[in-house]
């Protein structure tokens, strides 16, 4: 342990029955940084977080969090971390203030300090007005903020956030991003999982892309996007013949092919110069391409580039098995 790493995992493996969920995960997260584990459903994100947060032991491999082994020094890890899962871990029948007071008491604060901490956190997360109402009456975004607030009562050194914005509307998502950004500035280490490239890009210093229980790429957002290109040029072709020609010409460079809509997607940096050059290259006679649009690259694009298949889709054999 160098003292600089908040999370260090080597060769983490975990299976449930015959399903291999983690297949040798290596991770290194620097102290004080924001780290995102990016991947589709079923990639192993939650299992990784649960192992790092000491909730389940790995079948093989080691992990240290805040300097302590997650299996042998479980209790010390627990005192140094907080975990916010995908489902709001608060009591709906208690008020926001009561939930936070309870968590503060469990984190070891005496009664008066617990009340004070609850008030501070409600204030900080803009929940003071609703603080004395039962959480059952709150919106999803407010619950998620309360959940985050609850994870901060013990002033943890490492904060795990498992898909903090899944299921939130854009405004709720913005609010959470704001909070995570503020937290990052306060110097704690944040380890979050997400399905959204945009979220990882916005929040994280470093990103690891996980798929099928393995880390398939890691680096800064910029590094990853250089591998993937952060924009995608979608071309709608004039007819099936043009589609076939262009698809043949682009070969492996195409990140999206949709014959039904005659659409082909190519990575681009989004600059006018590059788009113009691409169009000239693909369609010198100016007949094949009918319309085009530039999109921000999605997780799908990253996945297609890194794994050769789409993020939402399981591997081929599993796909047939599901049917």
């Amino acid at each position, binding site marked *: 342990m160098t003292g600089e790493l908040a999370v260090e995992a080597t060769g983490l493996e975990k299976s449930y029955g015959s399903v291999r969920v983690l297949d040798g995960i290596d991770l290194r997260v620097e102290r004080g940084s924001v780290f995102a584990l990016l991947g589709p459903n079923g990639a192993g994100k939650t299992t990784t977080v649960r192992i790092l947060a000491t909730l389940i032991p790995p079948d093989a491999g080691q992990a240290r969090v805040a300097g302590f082994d997650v299996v042998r020094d479980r209790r010390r890890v*627990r005192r140094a*971390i907080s*975990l916010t899962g*995908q*489902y709001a*871990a608060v*009591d709906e029948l208690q008020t926001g203030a009561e939930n936070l007071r309870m968590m503060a008491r*469990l984190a070891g604060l005496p009664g008066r300090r617990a009340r004070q901490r609850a008030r501070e956190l409600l204030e900080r997360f803009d929940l003071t007005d609703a603080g004395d109402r039962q959480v059952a009456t709150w919106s999803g975004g407010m619950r998620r903020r309360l959940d985050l607030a609850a994870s901060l009562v013990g002033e943890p050194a490492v904060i795990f956030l498992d898909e903090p914005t899944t299921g939130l509307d854009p405004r709720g998502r913005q609010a959470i991003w704001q909070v995570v950004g503020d937290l990052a500035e306060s110097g704690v280490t944040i380890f979050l999982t997400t399905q959204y490239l945009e979220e990882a890009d916005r929040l994280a210093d470093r990103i690891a892309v996980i798929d099928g229980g393995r880390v398939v790429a890691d680096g800064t957002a910029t590094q990853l996007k250089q591998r993937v290109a952060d924009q995608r040029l979608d071309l709608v072709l004039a007819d099936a013949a043009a589609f076939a020609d262009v698809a043949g010409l682009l070969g492996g460079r195409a990140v999206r092919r949709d014959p039904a809509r005659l659409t082909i997607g190519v990575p681009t940096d989004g600059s006018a110069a590059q788009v113009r050059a691409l169009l000239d290259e693909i369609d010198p006679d100016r007949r094949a391409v009918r319309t085009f649009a530039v999109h921000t690259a999605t997780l799908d694009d990253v996945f297609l580039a890194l794994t050769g298949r789409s993020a939402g889709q399981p591997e081929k054999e599993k796909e047939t098995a599901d049917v």
Partner: protein
Amino acid sequence: MSDSLTMVGRSLRLTMRTPDALLTSLLLPVMLMLLFVYLFGGAIQTGTRYVTYVVPGVLLLCASFGASTTAVTVSQDMTGGIIDRFRSMDVGGAAILAGHVTASMARNLAATVLVFGVAFLIGFRPSAGPLEWLAAGGVLLAFMLAISWLSAAIGLLARSPEAAGGFTFLMAFVPYPSSAFVPIDTMPTWLHGFAENQPVTPVIEALRGLLLGTPVGNSPWLALAWCGAILVASVALAGWLFRRRTA
């Protein structure tokens, strides 16, 4: 220890926040007592006023009804997200379950007081002295504690709150084939073996004997032994299930 107190406070607050469920679990035993006394009681010969005969049985029914609430709330905790938060804060299973069991005891006590109150109004006249009251209270508390832990274990065993509720619904039938509501010798012979030897019978006999001042024999000791055995087995089972569920 301080975690346990916090969790007790939580469970009591949650109980108070579901007034409809609370009201049901308080009123149901009273309704059943009225049903037995005024509808069936006239047809049942027990040698005493039926209300006096039936009160101990109704008290045990209270505990069984209370049990289903406990199993459901434990199961809700285990299937919701909050268990992960508690565990990641190093709150142990003992503290979490202690909260539920204490709330269960509080609900049971409230229902018991209500049943005694209504029973007095409709003619329940026990002849117990202070010592007998104390002993009866002890037996009743031991039974409630055993049932509460058993329900907590069932809550851990069930995969969903609905399943937990279903399990405990079956448990509410156990007091019937005993001497709780009708004398055992009025039942078919094949049922005697079960009815005479099941744990509810010595508890009933002990309560009835102590409250009415009739000879109790060894039934209080038998009752305490049963309750003790159920309690130890349930706590051990709950501990094992909690570790298994959270591994």
